[in-house]
């Protein structure tokens, strides 16, 4: 009986071992399904919900990828650190993050990379030490080109355009306007930039500046507003001045903000990064890096699926592409998202 019991026990152990082994192999089989965590600034933001949609699209295209969409409940770096710690514990294969703070997340992301997790940042980047690469929404020259192209598309005979920007010292806006001027000189000789004015990202001041432009330049055909506050204020001013159809407002804006102005005709088109594309591209990049199909190094080309390739610069920063143009045909669909 003693012996039988021993045998039984041994048998049991073997069985457990076997079961354990089986579990391990099944876990290994599961591990082949790559788990990519998309960590966003905060949950419940329409823009990032759209990013998740894009990530899921990439996952279903790739087939063996599972997306873990997560983030803190409010936009804090501390919240993101907690989320990343739990992702490290789950040992996901890759983390794609839009950071609330470019420096505060570096230590925890370094820890993740040490454990063999691929880390990339997108949209709002992390400092160089805390990620393998950063995927920017767009680049300054591409934004400048898109701005002037949207204006030019609705004024085939050329004419006068004016810029209504944020503040005179806003670095981003000034760089975009300079890039726009370069593109304008090269490709659109018939367009004349008559004025650059500043609304300081205040809706009342932007509105007043737009009114000033309308009054001062009777032949003005387009107001280009590369700021979310300025573009809606300018559209409102054009509508109130009953100049809809004569003056077109374009620039960078959110679909939810601009949908009504597109409907009235004050704005024919405007642009912003498409969050669905961004989620898709970030997932593709994370997959390619985690699957060792590409390596993040200066000059490297990394595939973004249908979106083509991105080439990294010396800081390992890649660019997704041109800003996405919204017009009457698609603005309602996106207005529900962000």
């Amino acid at each position, binding site marked *: 009986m003693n012996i039988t019991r021993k045998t039984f026990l041994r048998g049991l152990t073997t069985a457990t071992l076997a079961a354990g082994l089986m579990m391990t192999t099944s876990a290994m089989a599961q591990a082949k399904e790559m788990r990519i965590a998309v960590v966003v600034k905060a949950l419940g933001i329409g823009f990032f919900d759209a990013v998740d949609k894009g990530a899921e699209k990439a996952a279903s295209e790739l087939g063996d990828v599972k997306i873990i969409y997560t983030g803190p409940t409010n936009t804090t770096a501390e919240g993101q650190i907690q989320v990343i710690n739990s992702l490290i514990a789950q040992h996901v294969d890759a983390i794609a993050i839009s950071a609330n703070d470019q420096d505060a997340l570096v230590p925890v992301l370094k820890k993740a990379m040490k454990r063999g997790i691929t880390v990339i940042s997108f949209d709002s980047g992390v400092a160089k030490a805390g990620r393998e690469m950063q995927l920017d929404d767009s680049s300054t020259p591409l934004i400048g080109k898109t701005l002037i192209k949207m204006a030019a598309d609705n004024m085939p005979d050329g004419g006068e355009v004016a810029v209504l920007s944020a503040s005179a010292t806003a670095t981003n806006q000034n760089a975009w306007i300079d890039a726009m001027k370069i593109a304008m000189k090269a490709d659109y000789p018939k367009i004349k930039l008559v004025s650059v004015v500043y609304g300081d990202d205040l809706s009342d001041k932007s509105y007043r500046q737009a009114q000033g432009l309308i009054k*001062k330049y009777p032949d003005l055909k387009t107001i280009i507003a590369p700021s979310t506050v300025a573009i809606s204020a300018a559209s409102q001013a054009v509508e109130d001045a009953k100049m809809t159809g004569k003056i077109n407002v374009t620039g960078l804006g959110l679909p939810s903000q601009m949908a009504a102005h597109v409907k009235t005709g004050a704005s024919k088109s405007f642009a912003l990064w498409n969050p669905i594309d961004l989620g898709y591209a970030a997932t593709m990049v994370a997959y390619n890096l985690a699957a060792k199909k590409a390596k993040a190094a200066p000059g490297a080309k990394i595939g973004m699926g249908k979106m083509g390739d991105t080439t990294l610069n010396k800081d390992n920063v890649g660019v997704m592409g041109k800003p996405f143009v919204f017009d009457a045909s698609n603005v309602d669909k996106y207005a529900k998202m962000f």
Partner: protein
Amino acid sequence: MSRHLKSREALLLLAIVVMTGAIALRFPAFIAPLNLIGTFTDTSPLIILALGEMVVILCRCIDLSVAANLALAGMIAAMLDVAGVPLPLIILAAVAAGALVGAINGVLVWKLDIPPIVVTLGTMTIARGMIFVLSGGKWINDQALSGAFKGFPRAVVLGLPVLAWIAIAVVLVFVVLIRATPLGRAFFAVGGNPNAAVYTGIDVGRTQFWAFTLSGALAGLAGYLWISRYAVAYVDIANGFELDVVAACVIGGISIAGGAGSVAGAFLGALFLGITKNALPVIGVSPFWQMAISGAAILAAVAINARESRRPGRIILKSVEQTALEART
């Protein structure tokens, strides 16, 4: 005293006329009737707020929370509109919300004796924070707002938009309030000489409380008007606008030391700022010069007011200083 006040306002009116003329030389379309109406309409929220600020300053206090209060009431109005509340109730709620914040300012100044600048700096920050809490940091955009909500201030009655009529109505109410009611006189008494006011049976704290509540209620009204005019509500609406409001009062000759000022002064002060704001973009002055010009106008106004108010002889006992002053001027 009243002769001096009148001359001060006449001076400001003259400055406005000269300035408008100078602008017209560079940009003739500025004095087209339609453009002048547009400029007046654009200045309406500032006029409304300046009148509220005026009574607070008359009481030797200051209200720095007006712009934040405006933004909070505006956000509440926008959210009620999204929820489908009828317009009259929305306007009432915006005014009530503004008056509540004003009343809180008033109670803190009255009962706890905290300096008004500290109280209103605090409520300014709290109001901005509350907007974030209420809205979750999200914007309420044009398309979420109803047509009636946006259309009411824009509707044209007898050639003027309702927004301009509201400003005119507020000015008239203030003329009556200041000239014909005990409260209106009390504002001057409390600011001019608080000790004497107590002896005449005026409750200084209570008068200050009413000044703050009035200023708050007008900020609430302006909140609705602002959101409907610019068709967007978010946390940073009218950021820094409190300085414009105080500047309008100072330019209008409302003495920061309290007790001196007039409805016409606050009205003209607001109009002066409104005209510069509307004119500078069309005459093509660089944004940095625009700030410098606004600042210079404020300093010039204060300098003129300081000279003006020295003469009425408020310092009755220091006869030496008085004669020294006479000698200098």
